[in-house]
């Protein structure tokens, strides 16, 4: 263990392992808009971290910085030993792009809008990258895909195109697609925000199972009940910084920071 590790507030849950993902001093500007003002994060193996905060707090931007879909302005990210440094002018830097690509291999991402490939079946969505990026042969890739499609409860939909699936089913296929890369960390960007209310449950259930089985995950969410059930650690962000973090009972039930309290009060009243 290097001296670089952050200690999460409170004691570590017993099931977590070594640090898998490290993000340091992440800052992000959109033009002159200072969206992230230096965010640090260490995530340990088998840990489920939920990031909450009002819209505009920078939580989604931070998540997208972790796999460089948003290029950070300052800072660095390391996942499973692959480190990429912020390089705001790096779009044409081959070395940088390749480092970022290798970083992404260890980070599966699930999007708010699913972003399934509409011209491929559920199975095709799940085998595309394993075959063409990881270099698995078709038989092996399909085995893997079938296993994860079954895990999200969609074994019977393997040959359907996304347009024939409901929102909840699409999102579960998207989760299976991410799992097929067997990443070290799963990143979820408000995975239920685009879903009709009656479809949210099936997606959260899959995610909760994953968390209980020890998947390492970082979830940006508005689902407080889900965070309370499935999180090992909750992070509250506001105005581009982490205001408070800790076990869900502490952050959600007995927040110390005034801003967290205000947010939760308003949020719970609305709910």
């Amino acid at each position: 263990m290097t001296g670089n590790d952050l200690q999460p507030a409170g004691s570590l849950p017993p099931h977590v392992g070594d640090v898998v993902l490290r993000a340091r001093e992440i800052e992000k500007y959109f033009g002159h808009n200072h969206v992230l003002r230096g965010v640090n994060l260490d995530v340990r193996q088998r840990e489920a971290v939920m990031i909450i905060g009002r819209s505009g707090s920078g939580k989604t931007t931070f998540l997208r910085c972790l796999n460089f879909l948003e290029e950070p302005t300052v800072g660095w990210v390391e996942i499973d030993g692959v480190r990429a440094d912020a390089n705001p002018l790096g779009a044409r830097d081959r070395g940088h792009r390749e480092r970022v690509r290798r970083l992404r291999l260890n980070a599966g991402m699930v999007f708010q809008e699913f972003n399934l490939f509409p011209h491929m079946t559920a199975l095709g969505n799940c085998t595309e990258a394993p075959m063409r990026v990881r270099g698995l042969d078709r038989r092996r890739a399909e085995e893997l895909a079938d296993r994860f499609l079954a895990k999200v409860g969609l074994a019977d939909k393997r040959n359907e195109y996304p347009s024939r699936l409901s929102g909840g089913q699409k999102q579960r296929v998207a989760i299976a697609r991410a799992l097929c890369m067997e990443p070290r960390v799963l990143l979820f960007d408000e995975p239920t925000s685009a879903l009709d209310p009656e479809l949210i449950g099936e997606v959260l259930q899959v995610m909760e199972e994953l968390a209980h089985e020890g998947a390492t995950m970082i979830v940006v969410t508005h689902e407080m009940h889900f965070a309370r059930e499935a999180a090992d650690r909750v992070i509250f962000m506001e105005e581009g910084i982490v205001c408070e973090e800790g076990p869900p009972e502490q952050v959600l039930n007995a927040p110390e920071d005034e801003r967290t309290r205000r947010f939760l009060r308003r949020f719970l009243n609305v709910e």
Partner: protein
Amino acid sequence: MTSAEIPASGSGPIVERIAAARRTARRLWRLEFALVWLALVLGIVWVLAATGNVDLEFVQTWTPFILGGVGFTLLVCVSSIIGAVVLALLGALGRLSANPLINGLASFYVSLVRGTPLLVQIYFVYYGLPQVGIILDALPAGILALSFNYGAYMTEIFRAGIQAVPRGQQEAAEALGMPSRLVFRRVILPQAFRIVIPAIGNEFIAMIKDSSLVSIIGLQEILWRAGTAGRPILKTIPAFLIAALFYWVLTIIFSFFQERLERRLARSDVR
């Protein structure tokens, strides 16, 4: 006239009576539509006959000769549309490239070719290029000129098609660790193609007629044959009318297939 009434009396439940009334209305609509076409065609024939331009003997003698140009017209069009698609794809990639050299070349190509008349371009390829030592037969020269010309217009179509693929598609592919080439080939391009197919069909119809311009360099397609048949015996107008009819029929046939293709695309699972 086409408005339908639900029969007040009649057998069967209301839904069936509505369906029957709709069918009747649709049949009536089609009948009226066909009558309009028939009236207009007969009108044109009558005008031509009245002005003495329908010379049955000439038509009988020369129609087979002019018809013999259809094959050449189609050969020129099909070859040129293939060439144009390749050029348009390269052009669109160039126009979207961050590299100033490639982007500059592509935008210069589009600007030059769209800014000058096709007729001039055909002359230039056939009569101009030999002056720098590039001597082409009429057929490759005609195909080259048409390909370059249509490639420039279609560059913009392809560029718009590529840009119309939702941003999330690229992000999802990148998040899976796909290198940019693979992202383009496997995710962006197949979707962009579906978007531009109707527009390519349109360009093809335009090309069927623009291919007549290559008659000026002596390619024995429809228009060249019409001129050759009509001019010596001062029957240019009937000859060109026959040629026009062939072009029209070709576009009608092609439009029919294009419409079916578009309907299939609209219905298809993947959109």
